[in-house]
């Protein structure tokens, strides 16, 4: 019987992380910006039907980058988790932090135990009466919370530094959209943007705050 070859855990984690990061870097990034009326999510997305941004619950939005089928399975899981919890208890009991934790646990397990790690990064945005929470979950289950602005994908760090340089509390929706668009453009100065996908969590909409932005609103 042959012995399995010994691989030191550092090496194993490093290889898997590198594999996942490569997959994620191929996709396009997504940015989120808080504004006075709620929160905005913006992605560069050439497809009009395969969405990267979607509604999870009354005040929670989801964005995923990387492999579509993999982050889609998390979107479905998120909607199921939120709807079951809201039905069992009450609508205010569904919070973005609980969901972010569940995602982090699951991605962490998949990263170690599955044959291949998921090549995804997920951003969960939740709004409250006076602000927003943004949770970023990475391929290995790393969970971080961010304030005001956030981004996921291969160019996340550059996007965030652009966004952060112009972000302030109480932005108007138009200003938030302009800042987000400029951040994408400044990263990709040598090419045209292939199409926008955008959505907002807008407090003025009542119970369900999620709304996709129309083409007219997104046009440059």
């Amino acid at each position: 019987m042959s012995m399995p070859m010994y691989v030191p855990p550092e090496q194993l984690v490093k290889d898997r992380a590198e594999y996942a990061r490569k997959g994620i870097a191929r996709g396009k990034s997504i940015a989120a910006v808080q504004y006075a009326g709620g929160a905005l999510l913006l992605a560069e997305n050439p497809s009009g039907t395969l969405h990267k941004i979607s509604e999870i619950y009354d005040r929670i939005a989801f964005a995923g980058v990387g492999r579509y089928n993999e982050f889609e399975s998390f979107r479905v899981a998120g909607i199921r988790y939120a709807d079951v919890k809201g039905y069992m208890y009450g609508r205010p009991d569904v919070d973005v932090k609980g969901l972010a934790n569940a995602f982090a646990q699951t991605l962490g397990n998949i990263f170690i135990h599955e044959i291949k790690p998921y090549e995804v990064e997920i951003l969960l945005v939740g709004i409250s009466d006076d602000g927003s929470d943004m949770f970023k979950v990475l391929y290995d289950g790393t969970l971080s919370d961010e304030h005001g602005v956030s981004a996921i994908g291969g160019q996340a760090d550059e996007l965030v530094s652009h966004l952060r340089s112009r972000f302030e509390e109480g932005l108007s929706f138009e200003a938030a959209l302009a800042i987000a668009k400029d951040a994408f453009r400044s990263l990709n100065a040598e090419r045209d943007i292939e199409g926008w996908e955008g959505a907002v969590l807008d407090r003025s909409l009542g119970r369900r705050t999620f709304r996709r932005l129309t083409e007219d609103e997104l046009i440059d």
Partner: protein
Amino acid sequence: MIDRLMPRGLDVDGGPGFIQLLQSLHLEPTWPTADGDMSMIEAPESTTVLAARYKDGVVMIGDRQATEGYSVAHRRMQKVFPTDRFSVVAISGTAGLAVEMVRLFQTELEHYEKLEGSRLSLDGKATYLARMVRQQLPLAFQGLVVVPLFAGFDEIHQTGRLFTFDVVGGRYEENDFGATGSGSREARSYLRNRYSPDLEEAEALQLTMEALVAASEQDVATAGPDPRRAIFPTVVTVTAAGHDEFDDARIEPIASAALEAVR
């Protein structure tokens, strides 16, 4: 529970249905039926609700009273519920069962809409509701009956539509008006004499409110508008712009006029 819902938690039903999801988690609501007669159970009953089509959509209106035997159980019960942007459901029958059915139905529609990225058609919603009524049949045999009334704006055909149901889950589309509950016979006969299909919104509101007042005159279980306690019927319209729940300030003048008109 969370683990089973997350990716790789493989024992959860894969479809877009919320009730199937609850079933695969063993969380679906159940009402065990006892052997024999359950008629000794006294649960609050909700009474008259009605709906009518008009030029731009549909209006649905319901009184606020629930009765238990010969006494009033609740004076401010809500029986008309928007279920999503373009539909509204009203209930009559055993209140506890009906309210739970509405909550499940609301969640089901929203769950489907979020997972699939599009709303069910109005026909699809009505069919689904009929199935939910049918599943209550064992309880109906024991005297716990739920009969909803469903209306909405059909985004495909750009028109208001409404559906009535029977206790075995039969689904019937009405092209003028519909009513269910203890005062429904009276309400329908009032509407039958005065209804026309090209009503304006204000006329439709007035007519349905009058029909409810007429029902309350004849049926002891139905309560009309009660200005003394400031309790007014629930009024919801659904048009191409979505549903619109009226607040008391908008209902009060309609209710006062209807009380005057039906004497």
